[in-house]
């Protein structure tokens, strides 16, 4: 320890703010240039890239949705061929789930969690960079396959045997399966980072009962990713093996089972919904108190509800398989467990209502999105209770009723809070406010357009319209409602257009935001907007759940970290007592090269199993480069 004497090594103790800023910037900032931009490991830069890319995929997926609405606007329309339509609805689902919803929620976590727990970078920052490049690779793979007319056409659920070797000719299903692998690797990487950041890098004093609800939500989400994603990776890998190598996992004639696929898929697929939904409720729980000027009511109950939802979500998957002919007793159990998840969801809603009741609402755009969320999500949750009922489900399963239900849950329950979150944190991310006027316009267009588009689908489902059909016959009584839905979808699209116009306009010429434009309570608002590369000049010390409301004058801070290399504070899991100064990695190109090598291996394995063998060598080289020892060590203090 002697060579680390504070007199010999530059520390952040007893120097002026301006000098400290200059020194930290020197240490933490990436140099200019394209290669440096690729090499950066700053969680904020990577998260912004992640979010922007995910929103590009949202736009592309939205265009696909409009194409489907065009085709369905009248009976026996011939705007889009059935083959292309099947690709389009498969792409829409796959894109929205794997390339938009999950990545954007994880990206919000990558941006916000380190700031909210008061640390300087996410844990494993190079893994974080690697994760982004893998995500981008998966997205490009899927969209290029669509451009080349070889996009998967087997549905985002890719049920065997339709996606299997006998009935899925060509490389379409293989492309789907490998795209899954890309995005799962990316998602698992981020999940690990979040868990470690939340457990080990919280600001001193931020004991578990002072962790912001959003951070709790992201933590539970990360655990869901870690437990759910391996099931789908196993499923997609065995599917590729069946198709390419001739294994028999899903061949009933040789002892395989087509239903095995559905179990594996939904064991992932149902928690997937909560992977998207839990971060969104975390956002709601964070935005709401700011705009009712009151701490969240029922913190413990809310956190308990998040954890309970996470655990329960692994016990519901069979309600996606109610009509496959499983034993009745088992199915009844899953009816009960699916109904039971209404309890934690209800607990959260009641806590929010109590918070609003006890507070003084200020109707700004983020709050409007939260209110839109409550109105919409409660409806979606209630239709969820309906499809949880086994007999009810036998009539609505795989109909437009279910399409309506999950759009209410995913758009109402996750995209509304996400848009609110963009309005809320945009000032933090860019230093500029978004427009209230355009924001209100886009909210009302999206809210009205959404309900006009998706509510009639409940009725369409009940009067017999199945999902995933590219057309329907004129004598069926669905044409009027379908045309109405198609026209309404234009309103919804217009709302999103206004939103994106607002984002682009505000990015360039929005009003300067300042540190804490909303008067919020959590730590990310304690630093400049946008935050400097080092996040916090001094790591803050936390004494309550609302540090910025309770410490109005000046936030207490720690000191003693070195300024000549990237250091942050490691604290204990439960009470967040400082344990060590940890020096974190510098920028590096290796994650990018590792992602390239992994991509080449995964894409090659669509065509030949030998790609796994030959592809392992470049991967080994890049990983060795990545992990080459650097000789800095963490120091106990």
């Amino acid at each position, binding site marked *: 320890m002697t060579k680390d004497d504070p007199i010999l090594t530059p520390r952040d103790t007893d120097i002026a703010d301006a000098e400290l800023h200059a020194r930290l*910037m020197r240490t933490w*900032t*990436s*140099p*200019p*240039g394209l290669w*440096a*931009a690729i090499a950066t490991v700053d969680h904020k830069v990577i998260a912004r890239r992640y979010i*922007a890319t995910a929103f*590009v995929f949202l736009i*592309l997926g939205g265009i696909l949705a409009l194409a489907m609405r065009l085709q369905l606007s009248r009976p026996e329309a011939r705007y889009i*061929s059935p*083959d*292309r339509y099947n690709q389009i609805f498969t792409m829409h689902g796959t894109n929205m789930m794997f390339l938009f919803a999950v990545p954007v929620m994880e990206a919000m976590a990558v941006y916000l969690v380190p700031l909210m727990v008061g640390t300087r970078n996410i844990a494993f920052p190079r893994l974080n960079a690697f994760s982004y490049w893998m995500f981008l690779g998966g997205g490009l793979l899927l*969209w*290029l396959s*669509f*451009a*080349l*007319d070889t996009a998967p056409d087997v549905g985002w659920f890719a049920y065997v*045997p339709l996606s*299997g*070797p*006998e009935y899925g*000719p*060509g*490389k379409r299903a293989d492309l789907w399966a490998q795209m899954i692998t890309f995005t799962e690797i990316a998602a698992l990487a981020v999940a690990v980072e979040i868990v470690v950041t939340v457990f080990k890098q919280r600001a001193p004093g931020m004991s578990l009962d002072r962790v912001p609800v959003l951070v709790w939500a992201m933590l539970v989400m990360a655990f869901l990713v870690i437990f759910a994603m391996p099931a789908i990776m196993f499923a997609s890998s065995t599917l590729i093996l*069946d*198709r*390419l*190598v*001739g294994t*028999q996992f*899903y*061949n*009933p*004639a*040789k002892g395989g089972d087509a239903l095995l696929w559905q179990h594996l898929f939904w064991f992932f697929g149902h928690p997937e919904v909560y992977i998207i939904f839990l971060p969104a409720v975390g956002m709601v729980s964070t935005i709401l108190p700011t705009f009712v000027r009151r701490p969240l009511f029922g913190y413990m109950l809310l956190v308990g509800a998040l954890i309970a939802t996470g655990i329960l979500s692994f016990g519901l998957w069979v309600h996606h398989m109610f009509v496959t002919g499983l034993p009745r007793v088992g199915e009844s159990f899953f009816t009960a467990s699916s109904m039971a998840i209404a309890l934690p969801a209800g607990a959260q809603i009641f806590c929010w209502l109590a918070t609003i009741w006890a507070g003084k609402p200020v109707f700004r755009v983020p709050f409007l999105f939260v209110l839109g969320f409550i109105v919409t999500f409660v409806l979606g949750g209630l239709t969820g209770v309906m499809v949880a009922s086994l007999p009810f489900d036998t009539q609505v399963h795989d109909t437009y009723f279910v399409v309506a239900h999950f759009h209410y849950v995913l758009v109402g329950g996750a995209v509304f809070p996400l848009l609110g979150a963009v309005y809320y944190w945009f000032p933090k991310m860019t230093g500029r406010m978004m427009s209230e006027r355009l924001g209100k316009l886009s909210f009302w267009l999206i809210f009205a357009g959404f309900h006009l588009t998706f509510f009639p689908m409940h009725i369409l489902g009940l009067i017999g319209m199945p999902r995933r059909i590219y057309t329907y016959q004129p004598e069926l009584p669905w044409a009027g409602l379908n045309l109405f839905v198609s026209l309404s979808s234009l309103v919804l699209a217009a709302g999103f257009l206004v939103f994106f116009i607002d984002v*682009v306009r505000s*990015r*360039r010429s929005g009003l300067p935001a300042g540190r804490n434009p909303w008067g919020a309570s959590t730590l990310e608002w304690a630093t400049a907007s946008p935050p*400097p*590369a080092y996040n916090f000049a001094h790591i803050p010390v936390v004494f309550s759940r609302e540090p910025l409301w309770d410490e109005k004058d000046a936030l207490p801070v720690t000191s003693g970290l070195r300024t000549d290399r990237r250091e942050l504070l490691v604290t204990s899991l439960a009470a967040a007592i400082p344990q060590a100064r940890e020096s974190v990695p510098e920028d590096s190109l290796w994650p990018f090269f590792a992602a390239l090598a992994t991509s080449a291996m995964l894409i090659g394995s669509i*065509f030949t199993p030998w790609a796994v063998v030959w592809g392992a060598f470049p991967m080994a080289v890049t990983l060795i480069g990545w992990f080459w020892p650097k000789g800095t060590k963490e120091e106990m203090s």
Partner: protein
Amino acid sequence: MKQYPVAVRLASAAGAVVVLAMAAYVGWAREPRTFRLPPPLQAGLNDIKLMASGIGGAPPEAFFAMGKPYEAGSFELSQGKRLYSWFGCAACHGDGQGGKGPSFIDGWWLYGPGLVSIVASIRDGRPHGMPAFRDKMTADEIWQLAGYIKSLGAYSAHLSAPGRNDDKSPIPAENRAPAEILFDPGPTPHHPDQGPTP
């Protein structure tokens, strides 16, 4: 913290979107899987020029005009595979290893390995029991089936070869080149009456 100018970022984002949009357009304009073959093209496909011996010949112009889909198109090959079971080929040829009829994977083609010969065999029949399917299948179906049968005997699997069937088939899937795996001339060649194997 270094940042690119907004214009550069916007331009590159727009560029990426434009590239994707153009690629999407190219994909859209590219011909998808062919389900409907117009009668003139079907007639054209029948126009093969077979050598007088009945072995080998030239494919018709329509085949080239269509871009030779039947040799390597994954959809055509997999359709051929379905036709193989629908039209009862297995009754004589088994799973490809032969039975009453000859094997497709022993490296020996009685009438040559050319696609045109196989088409002629299916369409017009051959002596010793191979029936003519002229009146049972359409021209494009015959070509699909012939393409599949040719791929069965390939010594290196084509990238677009179909995978295994969901059945009890004992031979390796087509995309693993069963002919290469199973070919074993043994102590006596499979067809001693026909001279050495090619």
